[in-house]
């Protein structure tokens, strides 16, 4: 495992998390210049997730986008904050969606979202169900498994090998897509801390002005990203 300058190692994070030690400075990236360091993840005041759900989301997103290797992981990007806030928003409560009965949660996936549950309710019911499966299969709740066991458990969830009720079938898709959304969305939503995900792939964020660039062929765009609130990375 390679530790990045400015980032705690993932293993270090897990130890700290288990011990409840403050993780101040965790998310302050090496190159974020203007934004003040946000509150550490263990001091973050959750809007929707319970303590157990938070522990799950922290552990799961840390495997979906791990810290090792180039680029920030989900923890450095503060993806769990993004997910918590999204689930507390009109997205979590499916305000825009047609949720009238009757529901056919067993309909084949190509028929779209057919569970009676909202995204927030899917998380709330699926996390304990998945934890129970992890307990039965690997002997502990997901957050307490080794990284290898966590990866194996997530793979089982992805492959549909975890027998979740039909109403909870969207859980894997939600978890993965919300994690990537939190990684790449504008930082105002709580994730993509310091725009480090954008820096990593070379996306300039909200710059949105490239008048002289269409005909500069095969030349890498040089400027780093800006956010909607005007931060630079």
């Amino acid at each position, binding site marked *: 495992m390679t530790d990045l300058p400015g980032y705690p190692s993932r293993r270090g994070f897990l130890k700290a998390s288990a011990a409840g030690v403050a993780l101040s400075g965790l998310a302050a990236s090496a190159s974020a210049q203007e934004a003040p360091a946000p509150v550490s993840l263990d001091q973050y005041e959750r809007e929707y997730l319970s303590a157990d759900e938070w522990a799950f989301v922290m552990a799961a997103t840390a495997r979906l986008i*791990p810290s090792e*290797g*180039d680029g920030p992981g989900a923890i450095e990007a503060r993806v769990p904050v993004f997910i918590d806030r999204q689930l507390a928003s009109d997205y979590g409560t499916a305000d825009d969606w047609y949720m009238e009965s009757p529901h*056919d949660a067993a309909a084949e996936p190509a028929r779209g979202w057919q569970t009676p549950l909202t995204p927030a309710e899917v998380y709330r019911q699926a996390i304990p169900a998945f934890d129970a499966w992890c307990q039965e299969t690997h002997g502990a709740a997901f957050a307490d498994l080794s990284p290898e066991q966590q990866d194996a458990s997530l793979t089982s969830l992805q492959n549909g090998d975890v027998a979740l009720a039909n109403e909870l079938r969207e859980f894997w898709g939600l978890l993965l897509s919300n994690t990537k959304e939190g990684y790449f969305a504008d930082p105002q939503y709580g994730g993509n801390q310091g725009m480090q995900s954008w820096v990593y792939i070379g996306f300039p964020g909200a710059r949105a002005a*490239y008048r002289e660039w269409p005909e500069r062929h095969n030349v890498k765009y040089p400027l780093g990203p800006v956010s909607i609130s005007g931060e630079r990375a």
Partner: protein
Amino acid sequence: MARQEKKKDVVIVGLGWTGSIAGIELAQEGLDIVALERGHDQSTVPNFEYPQQIDELKYGVRLKMMQKPSQQTVTVRRNDGERALPYRSLGSFLPGNGVGGAGTHWNGLNWRPQEVEMRLRSYVEETFGEQIIPEGMNLADYPVSYDELEPFFTQFEKVAGISGYAGNLNGEIREGGNPFEGWRSEDFPMPPLPTTYDSAKFQEAAKAMGYHPFPASAGIASTSYVNPYGMQMGPCNFCGFCERYGCYQYSKSSPQTAILGALKRMPNFEYRTGSEVLRVELAEDGKTATGVTYWDEAAQEEVFQPADIVILSSYQLNNVHLMLLSGLGEAYNPLTGEGTLGKNYAYQMNGGVSMFFKDAEFNPFVGHGANGMVIDDFSISQNDFGAEGFIGGSYWRSGTFNGQPIRNMPLPKGTPSWGAGWKEGIGEWYGHAMSIGSHGSHMAYANNHLDLDPTYTDRHGRPLMRMTFNWQDNDLKMNQFMKSKMEPLAASMNPDIMQAGFKDIGAQYDVRPYQTTHNTGGHIMAENAQEGAVNRYSQTFKAHNVFAMGAGNFVQNTQYNPTGLVGGLAYHTVHAIRTQYLSNPRPLV
């Protein structure tokens, strides 16, 4: 008891492209007009302002400019034997909402149909024989020809502000334009936009194979421009936020940039937002409409709006729904072929090839929705249907647009979808991929249709509309043909990795992945009331003072994006109202 408003000469239902066209043209006649818009008001400033608009999560992913299914949606089934289930969250298609409608958040790809697409049944019969038309395909001619529509295509292109290069100017084929397009009486109002790296690579490869690349015609300003209504546009800066976004700099063609500013200044035009029309009210004899009843969101009550002329100009699906609910025709029965409403619902058939070049820098965020180079060498007029075994065609395009990373992260097949391998993949490949898209025709079939759902209702207690739709072999064969032609072209570009994404024969309709919002048909044009819901002037056969505009008029979908034909038909219709109907209201055919 419904509140009643003062009578108007014209009531317009929905203030997108066609509602705005009807509004300004009929306001110029001095008529007293009200437009009823279900959604919210929106203008370039403040609603599309920079930088708030440059928000992929809010608009690109959470779809905040779109129709909310909680407000209106459809149910979907793939065949008559399946139970229709609601389209609960948006995926496959994204109807718009609010003033400007889908015209605010489109990509700006503006096309005219090919001449033969307007008389496709006749073309097929004359060229290949009727026997090649598959069982169940409702192949038809439009009751209006390309030549008749040409002045109205030109008019719409001038109003919308389209950039491009004419390939057929009054019959003269011009190098660098589309040699297969219908004749144009004038060149585009603005020259084409500059060409990005991926487009240039595609152009070179296509030329080398003997094809005919040309710049895509774009509802995106390439220069400073003033349209016939005095509306001003400024050149695009390739910000990359078109599809699903409003344009913050007056560059993308929309009702806002092209019409609404001028229309709002006319004293005889009024519009009301938060006003969802529930039904068109018919007179006792059933031969004319008396007006419409709408739900006033602010007052939380029903309102009757009397009017002499009713123009239905909401989104295609919503127009058909409203007509079904109002009895503006009989629902289509696919078994007997009787009835016209809901008939010939059609969609679009797309595919594409992605190519990965380790050492190339594409800067995928530099672009606009209609960016790129195009070929029409596999278009409807170029394909030998008899030899290939399908009816249809596609245009191909390469050009960067929507390079935002949540939605646009092409990775080589085999890259893990999460974990260390995914993270490595996005670092390695973002900015190093390009694609060629095939945008294809979609024919109409007896078993793809729209009617009212027996189970689900909307917030007003009205039945939802039910869509019965699945892919058919003819169009899938067309798509597979494009794959067989596109892969060699892509390979000739020597990518490090390439992969095709085309639907296979037997593919089932999936409501989840975005495909296009080119939903067409359902209140189709026809020569007579037995075959269609409206005549050549989009006038309903049921009630001569009700006109239904938009892509619902399409007898089958063309191979192109629908806006150009929608705009041309709208100008054709308002011209007929101005010159023939107002002086003598009657069935025009």
